């Protein structure tokens, strides 16, 4: 018989709860979906009897389009929901909103929410499969999976590879999910940014902490550059964007001063000229657009594997 494998979990709430084997299974399944989305007809009928609701309580471009495209390429029925255009404005609770949607026979929920832990709360109370598409400053598991998958595509097995994460680590769910994911796959991780934007006890997760951009770039094989999340910063963490760009921005001159080329990643949206200059973001070492392409394949794999568990 053919090999059968399944995920150890019913929901994708965070990378923290995945086993390394789960991540490998998602990657292998994504390989197959990547072939599918490069065909002339980019669609398969796997999820044709499944309805998925995309609940976005926070703004999103890439993640939302990527999930919607992944769902459509798997032939699922898709419902889109934005908090800004809904009864949430009238005071409805999260649980009421979701239960009302589920009573219309929805099988899976993809949710982005500003509150850390919101998808975990939902998972305790409802029967549908839940995929976390970003919960506040906590986790963004599909982004971490597609980042690691993109690195695997460039460098092969992640074991022993050196990945540096630059920027606003404190407010970044991408950073936390990436750390969990890369560590589970055996990579070495260092974070780099201004001391005010690096959480105090981060080294307890087994990652290196550095405040020197040049030194960290010299050390790493891959640089994942994150955006400064002004919308989550209620106090001043650094004097000005200009000063941040001067001390922590990544530019061509800095990359030229290294003795080897490194891979540049960014989860988007990019603030050009702040954390990364345009010539770096658009250079041949940047895999930013490959990340976006891989995002669809990874999300197809996650949806397919979670749906299969019913």
């Amino acid at each position, binding site marked *: 018989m053919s090999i059968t494998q399944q995920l150890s979990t019913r929901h994708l709430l965070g990378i923290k709860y995945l086993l390394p084997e789960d991540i490998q299974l998602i990657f292998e399944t994504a390989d*197959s979906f990547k072939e599918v989305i490069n065909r002339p007809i980019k669609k398969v009928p796997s999820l044709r009897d499944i309805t998925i609701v995309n609940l976005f309580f926070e703004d999103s471009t890439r993640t939302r389009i990527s999930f919607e495209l992944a769902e459509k390429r798997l032939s699922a029925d898709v419902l889109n929901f934005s908090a800004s255009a809904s009864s949430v404005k009238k005071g409805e609770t999260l649980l009421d909103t979701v239960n009302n949607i589920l009573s219309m026979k929805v099988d899976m929920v993809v949710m982005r929410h500003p509150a850390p832990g919101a998808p975990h709360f939902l998972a305790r109370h409802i029967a549908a499969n839940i995929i976390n598409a970003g919960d506040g400053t906590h986790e963004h598991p599909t982004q971490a999976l597609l980042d690691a998958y993109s690195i695997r595509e460039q460098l092969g097995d992640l074991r022993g590879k050196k990945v540096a994460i630059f920027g606003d680590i404190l407010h970044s769910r991408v950073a936390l999910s990436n750390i969990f994911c890369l560590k589970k796959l055996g990579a070495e991780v260092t974070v780099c940014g201004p001391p005010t934007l690096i959480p105090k006890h981060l080294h307890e997760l087994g990652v290196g902490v550095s405040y020197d951009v040049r030194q960290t770039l010299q050390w790493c094989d891959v640089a994942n550059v994150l955006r400064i999340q002004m919308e989550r910063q209620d106090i001043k963490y650094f004097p000005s964007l200009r000063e941040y760009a001067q001390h922590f921005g990544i530019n061509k001159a800095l990359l030229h001063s290294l003795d080897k080329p490194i891979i540049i990643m960014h989860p988007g949206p990019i603030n050009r000229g702040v954390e990364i200059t345009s010539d770096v973001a658009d250079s041949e070492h940047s895999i930013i657009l490959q990340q976006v392409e891989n995002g669809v394949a990874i999300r197809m794999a996650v949806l397919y594997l979670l749906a299969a568990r*019913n």
Partner: protein
Amino acid sequence: MSAEKVILNHERFALTIERLCQQLVETYDDFSNTCLIGVQPRGTYLSERIRTRLQSSIPDIAPLAYGKLDITFYRDDFRRREKPLTPSVTEINFLVENKNVVLVDDVLYTGRTIQAALTALNHFGRPRSVELLVLVDRRFNRHLPIQADFIGLTVDALDEAYVRVQWQETSGEDQILLYSSKEDV
């Protein structure tokens, strides 16, 4: 009592593949505008053999259009199985638009795999015709009105029986085994 029985031994196995190749040549002559597509995972062992045989026996044959089709995402038992099947690769680097397609699988049983393969094939264009070649046809176990055009061996067996094709590449010997029950496999 041994639960398994060899129903096609090594010598007859080779002869059967040889006969199937001859039948294909009689039908498709030089294989212009014809392609061979093996169904993943186990149909591809047979399609590889046939491809190699045809490629070496017909002197003027152009490189045969050849592909492997994975049907995991097209199966009708998704979410109805205990565990999901792991997909294999699909390698079809041409369109089947207006081509004659010979679909190759090892065992034709309920017909559901072939139904899924026909759906999957549609995503590579509209073929001029599709014919089905199988090594084993379990003719009394069909769930769907699907029949093969080229058959290696016809097996009449009860529903609970299991037919396994073993390949030299994976098991060390070419042979076909019949098990009286699926649990014995």
